[in-house]
């Protein structure tokens, strides 16, 4: 065999690639390495080290690599299976068209090789070949051979075959019909019942990576009936005990998908119960793995809240946990909160609120509020904890606690008025708009119970033009509330605030809201009362952060990028473009119209939200993705509400032109599908208050009357508009 020429060519190539990249010193070191490589090449033991060099070469100077092809073709007949496999693998790696033509014959032989190692290497090589030149795969009948190889006696060959077929399937289905010469139907890896059984057999015997490939294939299988689904679940469950976390997660995905068809309730419960231990075990892994596990657990809990219901303690944060792990744990803890574990949870949250990391402390305080909103019985305890935190006088803790108190007031109106003096005592220390706005909202809401409400509000009215817009809006509303509740003592202040807001304020939102109030007050104080002081629907904590349809899709993608980002794959692929027909294609014909519609809507919203992420910057949902995603989550929650869906359905035919013209908020236009997303903006009027986020009260206040009857927004909208026009 001609090893000589190769070893002579070797160093030359090595120099050209390496010298260009490395400093002289590095070069010397590498030169030694190359020498070693060449030495071992000659021995015939380590010829694979030449491969990376050749691969680099194939990219830059394909015509020279041709010279090496002969050797590879010869090697593919070597008695040593390792050499045969390496030859096939190397030829597949060299991305040069000319080599490809020489590859087919050796590949043909390798697919039928007696040695399983060669066969499994060859299987993967077919996928590589398909990527380079699909025609060759079709012409040589490699696809049929691959299908035959699913029945191979060696489980590793089966696994690699499945991986190769899946790769080809993805490549064939994702590419545009530009490769029209190929009949697409044959490239689709359709999993039949016969294949299914072979996969289930191979599953228990191959390597961890093979298992992941097979499990992913099983996730695509559509079971014929519930019996088959049960069978698949039962066969996959032992994989939960695999030591490799990615196998566990892939198995969880398969079970979650096929569980949809399982009709026996006891079996379903049993499967869910078996899912808990491996997920808990993942939490003893390194933080990176924990994070991926936590993101997936978060998703699973939205679908199956009973999972892990007794395991809240494993999610307790340690001081040394990285922030991304802590934040995720916090979210899950709130999700798992129930009246039994709430005491332990609260003392934990209180502990976290004394930590140093500002972001984490804020999220912990927020979590206390969410717990209060979620569990009625625990609300009082939560309020007490918040009061303790306010007593620490740490600025950001106090401010966050006040924001949270506002949510509690919304959920439990007129229950905790006793704490209002404590809150007001901190008025001077507030410097964040959100906290200020929250406190002002509370003052306005309970103006009749706070003796010095007018004094307190005067403070804000005096500095009105210096405040941020959300605070201005809140001040305006609060003063009007005060006036409606105590008309005698607040005549002057309401006059002052309306004057300032209409004359000196440069925000169109603030100005317009002031005009509307003014008009209402002067025309019909009773109407003003019914609008401004109307009953607000209490808020509740959303059980899911994504719309049910999206959730269903994400559950199908457990253990994937999509599930980690909590966004369907379409939305983070590319630039967030998502054409309508793409969605149509995505949604299977089997689904009924309604779910199709909601999936579509939800996806569109996600996309729209992504394009205008800057508008969605609430940043208060406990989520690692920061403001953008949490805003998204809130939007999706809105969509989950039937009322919101109605609204969107209504407005889709009737563009929001009217609204836009009233509020003159140009930035709202691209957001036509997400009216609730503008923080404190005029559109916030349509927030139905389901999201426990900060925007809710500010917005609801502005048009509380409107939002109380969300079913028919357009006509209601007309009225203020006319008033407004009259005013001008």
């Amino acid at each position, binding site marked *: 065999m001609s090893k000589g020429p190769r070893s002579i060519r070797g160093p030359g190539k090595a120099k050209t690639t390496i010298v260009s990249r490395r400093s002289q010193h590095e070069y010397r070191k590498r030169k030694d390495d190359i020498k070693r490589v060449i030495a071992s090449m000659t021995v015939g033991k380590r010829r694979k*080290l030449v491969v990376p060099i050749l691969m680099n070469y194939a990219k830059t100077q394909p015509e020279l690599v041709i010279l090496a092809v002969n050797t590879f073709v010869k090697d593919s007949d070597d008695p040593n299976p*390792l050499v045969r496999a390496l030859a096939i693998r190397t030829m597949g790696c060299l991305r040069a068209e000319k080599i490809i033509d020489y590859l087919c014959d050796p590949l043909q032989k390798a697919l039928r090789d007696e040695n399983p190692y060669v066969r499994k290497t060859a299987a993967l090589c077919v996928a590589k070949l398909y*990527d380079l030149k699909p025609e060759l795969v079709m012409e040589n009948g490699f696809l049929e051979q691959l299908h035959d190889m699913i029945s191979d006696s060696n489980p590793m060959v089966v696994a690699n075959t499945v991986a190769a077929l899946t790769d080809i399937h993805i490549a064939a289905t994702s590419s545009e019909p530009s490769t029209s010469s190929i009949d697409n139907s044959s490239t689709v890896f359709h999993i039949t019942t016969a294949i299914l059984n072979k996969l289930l057999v191979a599953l228990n015997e191959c390597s*961890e990576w093979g298992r992941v490939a097979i499990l992913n294939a099983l996730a695509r299988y559509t079971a014929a009936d519930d019996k088959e689904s049960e069978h698949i679940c039962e066969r996959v469950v032992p994989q939960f005990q695999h030591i490799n976390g990615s196998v566990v*997660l892939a198995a969880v995905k398969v079970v979650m998908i096929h569980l949809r068809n399982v009709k026996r309730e006891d079996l379903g419960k049993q499967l869910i119960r078996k899912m808990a231990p491996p997920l808990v075990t993942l939490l*003893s892994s390194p933080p990176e793995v924990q994070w*991926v596990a936590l993101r997936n657990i978060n998703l699973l809990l939205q679908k199956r809240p009973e999972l892990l219901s007794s395991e809240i303690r494993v999610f307790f944060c340690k*001081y040394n946990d990285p922030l991304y792990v802590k934040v995720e744990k916090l979210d899950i803890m709130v999700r798992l909160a129930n009246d039994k574990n709430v005491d332990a949870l609260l003392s934990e949250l209180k502990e976290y609120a*004394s930590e*140093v990391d500002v972001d984490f402390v804020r999220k912990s305080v927020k979590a206390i509020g969410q717990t209060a909103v979620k569990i009625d019985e625990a609300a009082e305890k939560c309020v007490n904890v918040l009061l303790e935190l306010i007593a620490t006088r740490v600025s950001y803790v106090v401010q966050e606690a006040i924001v949270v108190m506002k949510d509690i007031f919304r959920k439990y109106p007129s229950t905790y008025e006793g704490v209002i003096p404590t809150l007001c005592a901190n008025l001077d220390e507030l410097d964040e708009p959100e906290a200020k706005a929250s406190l002002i909202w509370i003052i306005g809401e309970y103006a009749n119970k706070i003796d010095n409400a007018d004094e307190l509000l005067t403070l804000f009215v005096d500095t009105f033009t210096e405040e941020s817009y959300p605070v201005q809006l809140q001040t305006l509303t609060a003063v009007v509330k005060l006036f409606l509740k105590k008309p005698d003592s607040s005549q002057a202040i309401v006059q002052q605030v309306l004057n300032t807001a209409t004359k000196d304020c440069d925000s169109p939102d603030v100005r317009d809201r002031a005009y509307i109030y003014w008009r209402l007050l002067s025309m019909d104080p009773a109407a003003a009362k019914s609008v401004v002081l109307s009953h607000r629907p209490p808020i509740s904590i959303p059980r899911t952060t994504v719309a049910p349809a999206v959730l269903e899709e994400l559950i199908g993608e457990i253990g994937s990028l999509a599930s980690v980002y909590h966004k369907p794959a379409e939305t983070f692929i590319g630039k967030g473009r998502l054409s309508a027909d793409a969605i149509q294609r995505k949604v299977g014909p089997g689904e009924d119209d309604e779910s199709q519609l909601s999936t579509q809507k939800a996806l569109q919203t996600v996309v729209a939200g992504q394009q205008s992420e800057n508008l969605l910057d609430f940043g208060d949902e406990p989520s690692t993705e920061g403001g953008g995603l949490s805003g998204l989550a809130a939007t999706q929650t809105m969509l989950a509400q039937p009322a919101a869906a109605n609204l969107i359905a209504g407005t889709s035919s009737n563009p929001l032109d009217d609204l836009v013209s009233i509020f003159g908020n140009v930035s709202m236009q691209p957001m036509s599908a997400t009216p609730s997303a503008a923080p404190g903006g005029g559109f916030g009027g349509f927030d139905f208050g389901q999201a426990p986020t900060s925007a809710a009260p500010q917005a609801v206040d502005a048009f509380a009357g409107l939002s109380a009857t969300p079913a028919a927004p357009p006509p209601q909208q007309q009225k203020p508009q006319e008033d407004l026009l009259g005013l001008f």
Partner: protein
Amino acid sequence: MGIDGLIILDNAGRSIIQSGFRSTTPAYPLLQIDAVNTALAAASRPTDVDPVIQVQHPSNSDIPSACCHVACGDLRILCPISGNVDPLVGFAFLQTFVDILQEYFGGVSLAIVKDNFDVVYQLLEETLDSVGHPLTTSHNALRDIVLPPSLFSKLLNAATANLAAIGGGTPIQGPPAGPFSSQIPWRKAGVKYASNEMYIDVNENLQAIVNKQGVPLTSSAYGKIEVACRLSGTPDCTLNFTNPQVMTDCSFHPCVRLQRWSRDKHMSFIPPDGHFVLAEYRYTPNTNSNSAITRFANPSSTAPSPKEVVPIPFAIKAKFEVEETTGTNGATGRAASFPGTLSATVMLMLTTRPIENVFVELNLGESAHAIKCVASRESGGLGRGLSALESGHAGSASASWSFDSRKKVLRWEIPNVPPSTHWSLQGSFAASTTPPRPSHALQVRFEIQSHTFSALKVDQLKITGEGYKPYKGVRGRSTGNVEWRW
């Protein structure tokens, strides 16, 4: 689609070695490296960087792409993934690769990787296919195709081709009897040892959080049964335990026959050659039988009943005082300073064994400085001969403390805490500008030799299928990671 490749970065964020990327554009790995470096630079603490970073695919924006990365000693290893793949596959592969490096070189560091450049490169080639499928990752199979850097192979490398031409270059173990010829994928065929041995290590790691009152909030031991197997031929092992019920949430090496385990709690397996993890489990007392249900039905979940947690083998009393006396008045022009004192005592609850290598760490907060401490042994052993002997044996190994001024972490180290001894740390510190906000949690790490929390006991290890009588050994070892709040 899948795992695109691996990139090993040095601590300056430069690429040392990377696997061959299939990606059509050479910019792809560079983009990944850049994304990670940017994220690291932007983060206040390197540990807080999201472990999965989204990266825009350079050539085809329709392919989602992300970068999984882990720090490993002074290296950072990146694993770019593309397509809608499980990032956990990326992390699992990273972990596997690090384990392989560990197995080959006994450690992972920049120097080691640079010294063994050729072997690392071969490992990359053998473990990862350029289309993104992990290939051979089991140590047993890998050792056949990538020779570990032994003395002989070093010699071979140093000498040039002429030696090799004569020598024929056979490794010590003799020519592998045909790689991948073994019927059992995880065990290589034709293994031969002069002396047959099998050692079983039961390692348990206690993960616990203790609240201010000294009551454990959560406390579980995560166990790992590690096996060092040096047996010839194809032995079939059966491992019995006297108390298998202490192991919950088990996960197993693929070699373990799951059916046998679920039937009679015997671990029956044909072991891989060399070192491997046979099983992992969790130990939480009294939750062995149908854990989830009983605990759910049990309403006493406000505080875990003492039976539900693994007892912590030591106790700590910590006191922290901050005086706000001097310098708080800004008019004096002096920088405000807040002197504080701290004291902590460690007591060992265990009466049978000493705990070793105790590290107590406390983050003192941003502006801490002027740390002065005394670490001492308060009382010891109550006249027990054993402990006196032990401390005498330990000799110079007494408690010490240090302060990491960059991380603001006070570290207290006690190499050996004999049973029933008290150790204390007393000191003072000062903080400027803000009142000191030390973390409210002491992080305690420790080891206990020849001890397991679960008291898992191997009853019998039967080896059949081969004629020899191997030497067998079982050893327990515990480590702990306890957060002690005060």
